[in-house]
């Protein structure tokens, strides 16, 4: 019995080290390009001509403070615009999707699972597939290059995924509390706000975070449906390679880090909330 335990423990220890090794390898593979970018933005450039290759340069923040302003004037304004747009559209998406998901989750229709899978299919549809007719429609509705227009379009693009995910959470919530409140005379929105929402709050926050990231990173919509009034960071990044202009690596690296930093900080602060993001299709089938 003792021998069996010892052998098992040794195997576990081997497995732990193996796992740690693989994990370390994976982390290096997935984070090295970003570390490289960060280092470059801080003024340290690689030199592959020497043997062995080396680095040169001094640690400095000049790429962030000066170069960005020179290469891309108004970059910081674009960061602010992107943050505003992403916040507005995330709020709109989550609100609209929450109400709809609740309605679907409390429905008695048996064909529900096909219907909700339809939302997943809509969520898989890339924006490129319908942006050409969409651009035309947005023009005709006089929403081109407006915050309102962009918010509505981003909300439409993100809503199907939000509905699918929120439906999963709401299906898990038992209805007894709602029915009890209803019997006591509570109105629909009171029930939604005081009883349902607190129960699914972690899931809603996780969903909002994911939608925020998707909105922050979207390019096609601000590129095609806006021009001068609403300029986002993604669109600014496209400008880097127009007219044969090749931006210096250090400056581009700084811009890339800036475009990443806000959502990185957000995810870092709220990562516990993100743990609650669950894409569970089997809940749909129940």
């Amino acid at each position, binding site marked *: 019995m003792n021998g069996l335990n010892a052998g098992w423990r040794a195997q576990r220890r081997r497995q*732990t080290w193996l796992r740690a090794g693989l994990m370390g390898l*994976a982390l290096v593979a997935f*984070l090295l*390009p970003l570390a490289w970018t960060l280092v470059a933005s801080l003024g340290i450039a*690689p030199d592959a001509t020497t043997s062995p290759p080396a680095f040169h340069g001094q640690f400095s923040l000049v790429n962030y403070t000066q170069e960005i302003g020179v290469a891309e004037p108004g970059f910081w304004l674009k960061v602010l615009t992107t943050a505003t747009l992403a916040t507005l559209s995330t709020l709109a998406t989550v609100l609209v999707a929450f109400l709809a998901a609740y309605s679907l989750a409390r429905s008695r229709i048996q064909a529900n699972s096909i219907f909700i899978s339809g939302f*997943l299919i809509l969520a898989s549809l890339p924006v490129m597939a319908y942006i*050409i007719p969409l651009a035309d429609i947005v023009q005709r509705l006089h929403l081109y290059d407006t915050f309102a227009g962009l918010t509505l379009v981003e909300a439409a693009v993100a809503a199907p995924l939000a509905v699918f995910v929120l439906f999963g959470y709401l299906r898990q919530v038992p209805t007894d509390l709602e029915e009890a409140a209803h019997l006591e005379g509570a109105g629909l929105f009171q029930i939604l706000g005081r009883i349902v929402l607190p129960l699914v709050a972690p899931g809603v926050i996780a969903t909002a975070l994911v939608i925020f990231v998707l909105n922050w990173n979207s390019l096609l919509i601000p590129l095609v449906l806006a021009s001068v009034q609403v300029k986002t960071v993604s669109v600014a990044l496209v400008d880097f390679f127009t007219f044969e202009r090749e931006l210096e690596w250090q400056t581009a690296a700084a811009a*890339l880090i800036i475009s990443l930093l806000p959502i990185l900080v957000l995810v870092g602060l709220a*990562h516990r909330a993100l743990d609650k993001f669950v894409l569970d299709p*089997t809940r749909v089938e129940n």
Partner: protein
Amino acid sequence: MPTRRQRILLLVPLALVLIPFLIGPALFGFFASFTNYAPNQKNLHVVGLANYAAVVNDSEFRSAYRNVAVFALVAVPAELGLGFLLAYLLREPFRGRGLVRVLLLVPWLVSPIANGVMWRYLLNSQTGLLDYVLAWFRVTAASSPLGIQGLALPTVIATDIWRLAPLVSFLVLPGLLAIPADLREQATLEGASLWNQIRHIAIPHVLPLLLTIALLLIGATLGTFENVLMMTGGGPGTATATPGLSSYQQAFQINNWSLGAAGAWVIVAAILVLGLVYLRLMRAAVEQ
């Protein structure tokens, strides 16, 4: 329980957003593709399948669809497989697991356009990571793989796998953690090999989840636009052309709206077909 009237009312905001800005455009694009419609078209008439014929006859579009099919067939299984393995590595709790999970999410936080910009520089001779690593082995690379006919598409695919495989691991981990603990322990005690444990316990439990993620990934791959826009512009030649890029260029740069819209609508059709396949597969997977 909300009444039927209340349930319909709750759906109205969603409808007000989806119909004009998602479903409407998709339908409009469908019907417009059978006409010669364009935003400033004066005399509108039906042209039948002429637009789609033009798409099929266009060598760039043909390359584009072929590229994106290759892309999906290679990238999606790689992302699913790699993501699954990463999640499997994370299934046992250990100190710092939370941090590792967040760190693995970072590649996905990089937007597709930023990803394109980043890799373009990283694969570049003077400033690149690739050349730096190669220099350690005394190899000097001549030019970026993005400019080489046979390497361009694989390189773009690799950067996509880099970006999305960790996201898959993030999405799959809750599914793995939901597997009843006693099932896993019993298998370990019975001495089941790792491969058998994965094949007979883990995969059946997360198969519906993997199918769902697969559908989302395929959709994203079919719409590939930002990374090729930045990394190669569709080149060299048409080696990395995608339907997204080509239809964008046709509609907004070459001003051939009909061709661009028809080329893009094929993506919608593909997703609808894939959606039906997904529904069929899901029913089979859940019944297991």
